[in-house]
């Protein structure tokens, strides 16, 4: 009951007109930067840090949290409509979301993303409110060995996006892993694959690769076909909103995505991307119409979108309970705490009760605001698709270029964007899937680092992955997911014979 009364106090703090205004500005700003590829919530909040010299802490954190949640909403819009992911956590959304848009179901895709985000954000916030202290103790049990096995499990998800040819899919995957390894190796401080370019020391931003492969590659591909006179208009079929069937197919993925997103987001090295991969894989496996995956299956939008929003809530768990910043955005928010002379740590809930509960209450409010703001925008957004193609794709190139330049004002990034775009065109031309590149790029370096950490701690003893119960369980799950279907098919064949 104590939690409830403190939450009510929090609402009293968050519902003052000035704090409501901060929540509104934050969610609006967050949606806007989410839409623009490249500029993410971490950079936006960092640029807004100087307001901490002027605004009181509660107001500032309500603004920042609004930006954080809003960016997760906004990122899906361009993924779905333009195949241009705004954030790395919405890359998976582009896979099915953009196919849905091409089938004339853009409205439904945007709606299931918005409602799924709302459901996930709200359940995630309930999770913060009531489960945070328990979740965080479980999360601390995850060491490098467990993370490595979690990444191994996540690698299985590649099988869901390999396409028709396993060999081509694996080539894409290893290309992605190689891209991910470029830069300074964290464990030794030595540069790898940087060709002596200092601009590559910090590695290549995954957003640059995603936007290059998806948006620029797609534009070049379309332009090449346009020249051959094969232009088709995007049809808008059926209702703008979700049909009864689409609702039925959405609600379970929302809930499963929320569970995955919140729990993995709460892990100190979990992140927002892995739950979206896992959610996509699970939805494809569980779907009654798996053949629709790759052609615009609504489950493939609903699940990952719920997962990325729930992970945003999950990330706040270690931040608020232990003062641990586990994502770039959380780290920037913690440095804002320090501007106020507040030292975030395990005692934050006691020493700054008003601030923390006000922040949590404002998360509930921000979620409602985002839903109210985003649903009426759906018909407007969909109109973008009525724009003639040469104009539309010209606009996409412009968006992609501005957004990429916004990441670090680097000309090298722009050159990379277009080089990868050209690579994306040839991949498309020769039927290599693009999604494994992204999965490899995100998971490859993470898995490598965790593997080496685990082996450093165990002094080179490989059995560490099997002797720890959690990591052994995760490995077993990965093995089952990878081999299970084959064994099952083999058995079924033998029985039939």
């Amino acid at each position, binding site marked *: 009951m104590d939690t409830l009364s403190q939450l009510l106090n929090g609402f009293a703090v968050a519902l003052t007109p000035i704090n409501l205004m901060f929540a509104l500005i934050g969610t609006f700003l967050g949606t806007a930067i989410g839409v623009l590829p490249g500029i993410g919530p971490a950079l936006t909040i960092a640029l807004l840090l100087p307001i901490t010299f002027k605004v009181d802490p509660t107001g500032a954190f309500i603004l920042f949290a609004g930006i954080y949640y809003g960016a997760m909403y906004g990122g899906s819009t361009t993924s779905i409509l333009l195949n241009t992911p705004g954030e790395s956590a919405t890359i998976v959304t582009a896979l099915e979301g953009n196919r849905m848009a091409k089938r004339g179901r853009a409205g439904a895709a945007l709606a299931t993303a918005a409602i799924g985000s709302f459901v996930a954000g709200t359940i995630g916030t309930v999770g913060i409110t009531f489960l945070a202290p328990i979740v965080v103790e479980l999360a601390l049990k995850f060491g490098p060995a467990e993370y490595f096995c979690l990444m191994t499990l996540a690698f299985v998800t590649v099988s869901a996006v390999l396409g028709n040819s396993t060999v081509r899919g694996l080539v894409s995957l290893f290309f992605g892993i190689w891209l991910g390894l470029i830069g300074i190796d964290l464990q030794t401080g030595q540069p790898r694959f940087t060709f002596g370019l200092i601009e590559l020391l910090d590695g290549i931003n995954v957003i640059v690769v995603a936007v290059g492969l998806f948006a620029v590659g797609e534009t070049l591909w379309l332009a090449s076909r346009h020249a051959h006179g094969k232009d088709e208009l995007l049809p808008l079929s059926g209702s703008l909103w979700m049909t009864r069937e689409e609702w039925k197919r959405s609600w379970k993925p929302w809930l499963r995505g929320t569970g995955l997103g919140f729990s993995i987001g709460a892990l100190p090295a979990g992140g927002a991307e892995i739950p979206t991969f896992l959610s996509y894989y699970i939805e494809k496996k569980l779907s009654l119409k798996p053949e629709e995956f790759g052609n615009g299956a609504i489950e493939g939008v609903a699940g990952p979108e719920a997962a990325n929003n729930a992970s945003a809530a999950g990330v706040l768990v270690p931040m608020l309970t*232990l003062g641990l910043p586990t994502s770039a955005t959380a780290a920037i928010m913690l440095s804002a705490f320090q501007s106020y002379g507040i030292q975030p740590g395990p005692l934050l809930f006691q020493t700054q009760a008003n601030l923390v509960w006000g922040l949590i209450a404002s998360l509930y409010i921000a979620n409602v605001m985002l839903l109210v703001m985003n649903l009426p925008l759906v018909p407007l957004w969909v109109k973008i698709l009525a724009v003639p193609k040469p104009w539309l794709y010209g606009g996409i190139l412009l968006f992609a270029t501005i957004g990429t330049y916004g990441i670090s004002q680097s000309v090298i990034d722009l050159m990379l964007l277009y080089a990868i775009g050209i690579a994306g065109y040839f991949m498309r031309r020769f039927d290599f899937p693009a999604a494994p590149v992204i999965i490899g790029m995100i998971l490859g370096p993470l898995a490598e680092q965790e593997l080496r950490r685990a082996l450093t701690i165990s002094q080179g003893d490989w059995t560490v992955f099997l002797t720890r119960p959690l990591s052994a369980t995760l490995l077993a799950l990965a093995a089952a997911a990878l081999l299970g279907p084959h064994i099952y098919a083999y058995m079924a064949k033998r029985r039939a014979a």
Partner: protein
Amino acid sequence: MSNFDLTRRDALKYGLAAAAAATSLPGIAQAQTLDRLRMYIPAAPGGGWDQTGRSIEQVMRAAGIMTNFQFDNVPGAGGAVGLPRFLGMRGQGDVMMVAGLVMVGSLIANKSPVKITDATPLARLTGEFQAVVVPANSPHRDMRSLAAAIQASPGGVSWAGGSAGGTDHILVGMIGQALKVEPKAMSYVAFAGGGPAQAAILGGQTTAGVSGYGEFAEQIKAGRMRCLAISAPERQPGIDAPTLKEQGIDVELANWRGVFAAPGVSPAQRAVLLGLVDRMVKSSQWKEECEKRDWTQIYMTGDDFGRYVASEVTRVEAILRGLGLAT
């Protein structure tokens, strides 16, 4: 080409300003000679160097020392990406770079062709001492006990900290050297950022951890971590932990941050910038800002600072060589 024009115009303007400064009295007159100060941050917004730069801006504004600021963030590789561009601003007297020990280590580990000493050192401003911590349920109650464990099995004691070659890693290497064990044989586990590293320590995934004291302060206060030692020369007010030195490990390290002017600035230009920094450091607002942010002031200016930076480069190089990160 417009870049070149700007440089020429600036050089002309500040040439005049410097002439004015040279003929006028130090102090207030100096401050009036710059109408704008450019802060060059070789790191992303929000990090330690950026916070230092923004605090300089706030304090100078509040104290009426300088009101017109322009910020330029060039992030990447502990400053190794940003420094070359700063070195290209040769002779420009209106720009200041924030940097520190992290850049020294990063340049060496990356075998960068440029050196931090190519910039013009202005002043060391703040520093943070490193802390050696263990999880609350660790059997090690003091540094002697941990040191014995390291000497018994250097690889058996695992350390969580920031990226390889960074300040945390440097301290572990120094402790190894002081204990006469091969630094390379020690199990150092690099994490990306303070959050994941702290999570690993709290969860007991590693034996010990190293970071700036401030990063651990709240965990220590809450009883979730135990601070075995700090890397200061003597005990620090507000920190309830002994030094490494008094526990028989002759190691001292401060993660310092300071400001640098562009290479090739004239003595007059350098004097103008030093004057601004000096007035800022002596203001009450700077004192408050440092207290709020838990920064220890270790102010040092001019040639002293220049020699200090050079000695840090030599020292860090030797340690990184011991760790196998430099040749």
